């Protein structure tokens, strides 16, 4: 530890403290004051670790990414909560200050800041945007209409595969050599067709599912959607057309050839391949904005009000002459269509898809947790929940960098022997991540159910008139 680090650390922490106090005094509400404190603490903590801790490059990068992500997420929450313009500026100020300290400090310490920042924004916007879209769809189905869809991962997978099959040109074969004999029948259509195809197919399957189950109790829909998702997974894993377990690779991205210079001499493109993702992120954000605005309008429209009425008291809605079945079906289908679009976007940005990429935890469980934490029935809250949990999920990636990958075990009690090099990473990290999030979910359900539990805790059905 040299004197430079020491000075930088102390200086940085003083600045962080000063800024913290500055903002604290000027904060209007208690929430804003808390935010100021949080930003300050985060900066101080990070700067300490950066200069005085003994971190490896990898650990530093992870810390920085997570810190940046957390800052943006929390600031989003407070930004949406702020009522006044002054409040908005305040939040922006705290955010920029925190980020400035984090990244500025890192730059001073010699960390490669620019590409990290780029990575941060990319991940947040692309994946966060996709989760946001899923959440809007889920919120429409559950928050507004009370439909219990736990097969989101199925619809997303369906959309992804459909879009892929429509867009892939037919002369490119599958990912692995031994599958080269069975080229998938592909159409090589432009991206928009893939998107629309994905949307329509998902709508169709949602329609079929809804017709069978919407007249029954709500948890039957849950079972049906999770069953459907399971079937889609099995199909993806076992049909030649979907590349079996290897999946499909070399998926074209929209406008890629047009936008990107494949080499120095290429005159058709504009841009370095690395920056393509900004375009894609932009595209997703535009889609997110469109869907968000559309759903906001829907929510305020007569159709939206009927949906809410159905959620509150379906019998009453029926009595008033509204065919609740029809409305529920429409809501289910519309939501599923958006989920299909998510799949399509995902496939074309990831550029290869496998059946495992659409697992239930990542695409169904997480959105539900986001929805519950963000508060259902509320689009704004849903979006915040999305970014928040995504950050939490990514942060737990920490484990990879701060914990050992393997542990040697040597137990010999005579009748019980256990000697191996325990693969902690493969065996623990994934599950621990899930346990953390699932536990958070349970705690939220227990202590802050916020309207999820429904209006009144009834003593028994005997109490209903």
């Amino acid at each position: 530890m040299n004197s430079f680090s020491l000075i930088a650390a102390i200086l940085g922490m003083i600045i962080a403290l000063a800024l913290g106090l500055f903002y604290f005094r000027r904060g209007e509400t208690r929430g804003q004051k808390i935010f100021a404190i949080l930003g300050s603490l985060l900066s101080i903590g990070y700067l300490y670790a950066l200069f005085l801790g003994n971190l490896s490059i990898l650990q530093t990068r992870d810390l920085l990414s997570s810190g940046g992500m957390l800052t943006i997420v929390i600031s989003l929450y407070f930004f949406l909560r702020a009522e006044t313009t002054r409040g908005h500026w305040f939040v922006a100020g705290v955010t920029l200050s925190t980020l400035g300290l984090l990244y500025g400090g890192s730059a001073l310490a010699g960390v490669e800041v620019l590409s990290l920042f780029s990575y941060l924004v990319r991940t947040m916007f692309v994946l966060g945007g996709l989760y946001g879209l899923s959440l809007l769809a889920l919120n429409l189905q559950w928050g507004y209409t009370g439909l219990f869809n736990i097969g989101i991962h199925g619809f997303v997978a369906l959309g992804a595969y459909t879009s892929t099959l429509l867009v892939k040109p037919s002369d490119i074969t599958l990912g692995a050599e031994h599958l080269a004999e069975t080229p998938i029948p592909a159409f090589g259509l432009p991206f928009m067709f893939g998107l629309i195809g994905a949307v329509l197919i998902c709508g169709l399957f949602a329609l079929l599912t809804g017709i069978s189950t919407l007249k029954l109790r709500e948890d039957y829909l849950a079972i049906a959607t999770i069953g459907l998702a399971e079937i889609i997974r099995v199909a993806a894993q076992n049909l030649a057309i979907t590349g079996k377990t290897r999946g499909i690779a070399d998926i074209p991205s929209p406008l890629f050839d047009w936008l990107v210079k494949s080499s120095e001499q290429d005159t058709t493109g504009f841009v370095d391949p690395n920056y393509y993702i900004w375009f894609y992120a932009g595209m997703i954000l535009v889609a997110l904005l469109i869907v968000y605005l559309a759903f906001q309008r829907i929510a305020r429209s007569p159709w939206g009000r009927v949906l809410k009425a159905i959620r509150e008291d379906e019998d009453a809605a029926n009595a008033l002459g509204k065919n609740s079945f029809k409305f529920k079906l429409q809501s289910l289908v519309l939501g599923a269509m958006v989920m299909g679009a998510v799949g399509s976007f995902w496939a074309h940005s990831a550029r290869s898809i496998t059946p495992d990429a659409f697992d239930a935890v990542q695409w169904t469980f997480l959105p539900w947790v986001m929805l519950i934490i963000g508060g259902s029935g509320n689009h704004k809250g849903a979006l915040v929940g999305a970014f928040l949990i995504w950050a939490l999920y990514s942060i737990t990636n920490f484990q990879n960098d701060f914990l050992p990958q393997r542990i040697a075990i040597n137990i010999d009690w005579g009748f019980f022997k256990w000697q191996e090099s325990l693969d902690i990473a493969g065996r623990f990290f994934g599950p621990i991540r899930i346990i953390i999030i699932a536990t958070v979910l349970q705690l939220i359900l227990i202590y802050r159910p916020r309207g999820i539990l429904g209006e009144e805790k009834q003593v028994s059905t005997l109490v209903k008139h």
Partner: protein
Amino acid sequence: MQQSQTHKSFFIRRWQLTSLISLSAVFLLFVVFNEGANKWFFDSLSTLHAQGVQALFSGIRYGCILLLGAIGLSLTYKILNFGNFAHGDIMAAGIGIAISLNDIARGVITSLMPDLDNGARELYSLLFAFFGTVMITPWVSTALDRILYKRFRKAKPVVMIIASFGMALIIRSLVQIIWGTQNLGYGQHISITPPVVLVELWGREISVRISTQDWVIIGAAIVLTLLLHFFLTYSKLGKAMRAMADNPDLARVTGIDTERVVFWTWWIGGALAAAGGFFFCLAFGPFRLFNIGPQILLSLFAATVLGGIGSPYGAMLGGLLIGLAQNVLIVFIPYEFNPTAWQPAISFALLIVLLLVRPQGILGGSK
């Protein structure tokens, strides 16, 4: 407002009848005139002919396993008004416990009685594992209720399902942490091909492979269901359990100690699930433990709904039927699609058809 399904059993409504007929007609036309479909159909039939009895047997065996799991699921579904998505993973946990107990027992027996022959040693350790898991696993499901579900007694089913989904993930993760990602089993000598039994049926000699384990599974399932039956029919707690399955609110009003009944329902459900899991590993092991939960859950739900939620006997029937369906109907799936992977698909398809035609299941009361 609701359709009048309640009075007539298997009353098919007109639209269902017409769609059934037209679909069958289209199907038949297709099979007759399309060469590919024709070939597929008759190929499948001949496979059925050749392997039908074996498939029947595998179906019964699988059905026995399913029914043990489905009983607990069905009871808690009715009494507590939600589908416990963690049930499959509890079965998986039961398997894990059985495997560990088996290993421990084998180790202990080997060091205490080194001269014992292989077969006997395996038998004793398996017995230890069986009774061990049947005694230990129920405490997992009752703990689950105590810690989590109890708080939601008055909540909407949706909350409970989400909570149970979360618990399923937690248990699955714990299973992965504790038992890892390798293939695990009882270390039994599964590589020995089961002996061939010759059966005479309709003048034909058919060879079927049945191993001792298969007989054990079926026998044990019979014994357990009989025990359950006696318990439900003749004991006060058993009757109270049936009463609660009929009408939990009335049970409370009658003065029945509902929490106690709920506790024992979870306990028995967990014990049966552990037994089912034990046999599942016996029949299909070794495998990766953490995958088992979600795989088997769909079939369990199908069996539960098929039999009628709340009826333990319905769950038994449903389990057998789903088991049979899954093993017999896969002859219709062409080989290149990897038929065994599609078994849950069969359950799902049956479930959807069931929900369309008779959602209350076979033995269920009116919705």
